């Protein structure tokens, strides 16, 4: 347990020393700021014509999910691919560290960094609350951010597993992004063609927009995200273990 925490802390602090992580964080917050501003400006214009309409928290929560799909691969790509390229993986795998501890530690570090970004974005609901009267409904804010954290946990875990497959960060990034987009869009064909529900159940966005974004907490969605995270960590551990056997 302690070993896991040592690795997690190192990964977390490493994000603050690498320019790529800063760039990703900067883009994330910049895009959110632009979207927030544009939405506020648009609703302000509209409120002249339709008095009473006010922006709700979805203007900030919904774009964040999309942003996560693009930002997380950039943050997880390095985790194991870099260690494998630099040969430092040899050091970690010959230290008294279990493979699972290594993977979970790496994941926890990246998850905590993404969680930090998400929590920084809490500033927007606070600002929004000041802008509208009589204030915003905090229910969807809480469920929305909870959903975002759960989604981030899943995405970072899957990203960690994909990173373990590669020696090259760029390859890890592209593969992770492709994988996320697949998961993101899985539900679309079945929606339009009325196919089986299973695709929709596997769809990453389906578990967010229909519930968390509307202020609903459904255990099925929590289980979906948690099992996704567990699957990613398990796969990552297996990938590292099989690396040893080659």
């Amino acid at each position, binding site marked *: 347990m*302690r*070993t896991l925490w*040592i*690795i997690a802390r*190192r990964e977390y602090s*490493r994000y603050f*020393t*690498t320019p790529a992580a800063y760039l990703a964080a900067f883009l994330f917050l910049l895009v959110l700021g632009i979207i927030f501003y544009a939405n506020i400006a648009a609703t302000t214009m509209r409120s002249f014509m339709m008095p009473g309409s006010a922006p709700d928290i979805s203007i900030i929560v919904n774009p964040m999910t999309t942003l996560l799909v693009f930002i997380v691969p950039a943050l997880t790509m390095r985790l194991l691919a870099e260690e494998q390229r*630099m*040969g*430092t*993986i*040899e*050091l*970690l*795998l*010959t*230290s*008294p*560290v*279990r493979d699972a501890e290594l993977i979970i530690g790496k994941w926890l570090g990246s998850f905590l960094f993404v969680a930090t970004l998400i929590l920084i974005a809490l500033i927007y609901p606070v600002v929004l609350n000041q802008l509208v009267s009589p204030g915003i409904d905090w229910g969807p804010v809480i469920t929305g951010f909870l959903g975002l954290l759960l989604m981030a946990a899943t995405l970072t875990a899957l990203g960690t597993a994909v990173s373990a497959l590669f020696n090259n960060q760029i390859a890890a990034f592209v593969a992770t992004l492709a994988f996320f987009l697949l998961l993101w869009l899985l539900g679309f064909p079945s929606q339009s063609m009325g196919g089986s529900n299973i695709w929709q159940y596997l769809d990453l966005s389906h578990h967010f927009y229909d519930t968390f974004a509307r202020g609903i907490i459904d255990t099925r969605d929590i289980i979906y995200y948690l099992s996704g995270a567990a699957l990613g960590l398990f796969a990552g551990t297996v990938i590292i273990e099989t690396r*040893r*056997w*080659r």
Partner: protein
Amino acid sequence: MTQTMIAVQGLTKTYGPRVAIDHLEFSAKKGEILGFLGPNGAGKTTTMRILTGYMPPTTGTARIAGFHVVDDSLEVRKRVGYLPETVPLYNDMSVLDYLIYMGRLRRVPKVEDRAWEVLEQVGMEDRADSFIGSLSKGMRQRVGLAQAILHRPEVLILDEPTIGLDPTQVVEVRNLIQEIGKEHTVLLSTHILAEAQQLCDRVLIINKGHIVAEDTPENLQMRLQGGTRILVTVQGPPQESLLTRLRALQGVQMVASKEDGQIEIVAEEGSEVRPQIARTVLESGHNLLEMRRAAMSLEEIFLQLIGEETATESIAEGEDEDETSTEDAEAEPTEEA
């Protein structure tokens, strides 16, 4: 009683059809420096990776301090310090931070004090705050070594520890290894024979996954050398009469004048002919500039052994062709059983 720290039995590793190491057997006692000598691709790194718990062997067992490298991998890893061939360093960390991180992973108590201690040992205390990315190759090697001894491992495994260092650094690192070898068991691989000769109590010569020789550097020399070789340098070119007189000496087997003016004399093992040689040289009117015993270098031994190996192998391969393939197939299962 001296404890066996490394025990390897029937260790085999195959990568698909390629056999990297084939039924290796060796052991090392506490406080011993064991040299692993062989050409590139002989299986040195593979053996080391198995011993450090990085990868499991295909068959066979290896124990470090009594712990099985696969079944008690974590216990083994606690007791082993490892410096891989490509020194694994994080370029974005400072030297001290790196050592503290590695120390924490290995549960080193009072890790910061210990990090300073090893930094002093490798002579890097003035670069503690430098980023690893800015260090020279020799310094990186020393940081790697510091990392390997950080947790006071019982067994130290070093894969080509002096590769890419300048001569002064090589001497420094060798002294350091010798220092460490007093308390720890050290297994080091190298293809620099002089290094093995200087550092190791015992040398394993490995080629194509087999151990071709195992002995102390001195014994290896004794074993392969027919007689004592003596090199004599005289002032000016040696006259033929001198060579004839030298040949006549008791115990001298061969005298040859070499192109560079040196005289090479091969004497019988055990007979001391040097006083007579000196006298003969002076009596024949030459000035004696230098006389030394030229031991056969490990280099020559190495080439000789590797040469024998390849020769016997080609014979064996020739024999194999005569055998039917069914015999081969039958032989394999019995080997595993």
